[in-house]
């Protein structure tokens, strides 16, 4: 039984078929890549699994439990954390507050604690701060803990998203183009962080990426999505040389 399993997921936006008959199975500790040209439906698949949309057909199982139709925060608390392709940070909050807030579901001091500053709350907040600082250390930005995120450089903002996602203590981490818009140096650092996190926490990672090199480097298993359908699947080398994939990325040669 795999950790995360998607069976025959199909989704329509009105009359548009965005995803068709999508299957996925991720085992613990595995890095799974999803590639495909722009508009193929990669992010839609993320949004479907993490509960932003409910799939029209099919089922999603996490640890054998169906999470289809659950609200996004419940799915996240169940162990699916994600980062966003276009950063979605809270622009008035500090780095530390970002990471702490991702522990929201783990805090149980309740409204009494929130209103009256009970000892239980003080204790839990202190614990949460400690955990958050550890995670910031892991991604290498603990020195920026009290900075408001909008004042950070782009690369650091990506790391905040990463630390925030890790704070959920996910079973599977969804990375939506973690190196989008990065320069080569920042990209290499990001790869290092992903590797490090993967090794450290033995996380299963589900990765959307445009840069072939990065996906080929990191993933153990790759799917190629074209117009909402998987056209090729397998080990990186297999997928890389698949003519369908080359077609999708480079276009067909026009025969004259």
């Amino acid at each position, binding site marked *: 039984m795999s950790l995360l399993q998607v069976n025959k997921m199909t989704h329509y936006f009105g009359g548009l078929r965005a995803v068709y008959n999508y299957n996925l199975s991720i085992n613990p500790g595995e890095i799974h890549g999803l590639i495909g040209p722009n508009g193929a439906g990669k992010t839609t698949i993320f949004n479907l699994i993490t509960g932003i949309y409910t799939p029209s057909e099919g089922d999603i199982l996490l640890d054998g439990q169906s999470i289809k139709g659950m609200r996004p925060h419940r799915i*996240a608390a169940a162990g699916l954390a994600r980062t966003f392709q276009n950063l979605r940070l809270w622009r008035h909050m500090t780095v530390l507050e970002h990471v702490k807030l*991702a*522990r929201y579901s783990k805090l149980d001091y309740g409204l009494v604690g929130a209103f009256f500053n009970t000892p239980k709350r003080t204790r839990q907040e202190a614990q949460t701060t400690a955990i958050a600082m550890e995670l910031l250390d892991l991604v290498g930005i603990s020195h920026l803990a009290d900075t408001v995120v909008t004042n950070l450089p782009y690369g650091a903002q990506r790391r905040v998203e990463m630390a925030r996602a890790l704070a959920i203590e996910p079973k599977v981490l969804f990375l939506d183009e973690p190196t989008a818009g990065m320069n080569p140096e920042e990209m290499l650092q990001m790869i290092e962080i992903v590797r490090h996190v993967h090794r450290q926490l033995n996380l299963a990672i589900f990765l959307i990426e445009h840069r072939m090199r990065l996906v080929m480097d990191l993933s153990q298993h790759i799917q190629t999505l074209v117009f909402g359908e998987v056209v090729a699947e397998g080990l990186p080398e297999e997928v890389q040389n698949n003519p369908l994939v080359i077609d999708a990325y480079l276009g067909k040669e026009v025969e004259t």
Partner: protein
Amino acid sequence: MEVTTGHSSPTPRKGFSRIWNSISQFFAQTPLLGWILGILIASTLELLIGFPLARAIGLNKAPVLFGVDIALKTPLLLPATLLYDLVIYIIPIVLVVRFLNPLTNRLAAWLLRFPMWVSALVHMGLLYLALDLWTSVSDYRVLVAKLMMIAIMITLSLNVVNGFMGEFSCSHPGFMALGAYSASLVTVFLFIGSNFGPAILPESLGPFIFPIALILGGLVASLGALLVAFPSFRTRGDYLAIISLAFMFIVKSLFENLEFLGGARGFGNQPNWASLPVVFIWTMLCIWIINNFVQSTMGKALNAVRDNELAADAMTVDTRKTKMITFLFAAFWAGVAGGLFAHVLRYVNPGTFGLQKLAEVLAMLYFGGLNSVTGSIVGAIGYNLLSEMLRPLELFKWIIIPLLLILVMLYRPTGLIAFKEFDLQKILQPKTPQTKVEVKNVTPAS
């Protein structure tokens, strides 16, 4: 308290800001304790020599609000009122600040060796003492102070929704009305008696029941909030503004048509239980609880919902619950404030809780600053003082205040003190300077 009004209008001119800078430099090392002590001494001084002094310099009564009202009515008396302010307020406070800084700083440091709440309680006690002394001169001041504190509660509770959570709710006057009428209903029917029958309980029990009546008022307001929240919180943005505005009008016309509550004539005869200490305690409680809430990680969820709801959801925050609880919470405090309001004026009238009230609350909120507890306090105090002081201008008051508001919006679009944490530790701690700064500061002054 008059100190805070100095912030009211940020002037862009260079020379002014230089003066402002040197003033704030001069006061930079004064801890809160120093300010409270200064106000305490000034108030005592006014109590002792205020009236004779006013007589001696040609005012026929001691100025109630720093003489602005007198000067506006008869501009010839301006020098006299200035002299009065100088002797009673400015000189004593400056002297306290100038000479007692080392003492107050040491005292503040000593207080912080105990748990924080000890220091906070001492500060609050002294603050109350100062307020009590200052208001003991005239009943008008008592009324202004009470209404000011109620305004703080309302502004703060609206800030939770409009500032911290970033929704735009217009129903606060409605919640106030619900709280005001519910609390009045309990106190009047139980203790005063009405056309339905005589009082049921002896009035001596009143002060113990009064908090319960207020809380009940708050809960009724929360219930009203539930009615607004259900249809409007599934979507974001303008819908809440429209629905909450409608709600405000519905509540108003409801009370206009409830004959057993006096209808449009209003509902009076509330017992006189909202004394200065009672209002003070409720205000402090409100500030404390709201501040606790917005500083907790649960409260930070409000900011996350405002800044990016999708991300909040993806990070395990139950956004729907958060929005609902926050809205009910804010309505609760508006209801409590409404209950106090009814018992301060000892009369309520549906007309009070209309568009003008809404405009006032919104003005205080945006004047003071979004997402900031300090901002709401400053906004409520500043607006109320200004509004009372400019009263002699009558109609022109409503030209000057909006103009000021526009100025604030131009130079500080989010308000005077927006997006700032109300950090108790920082507020109470001594402002002990590094020695270098101290030397630099002392030389020009002496």
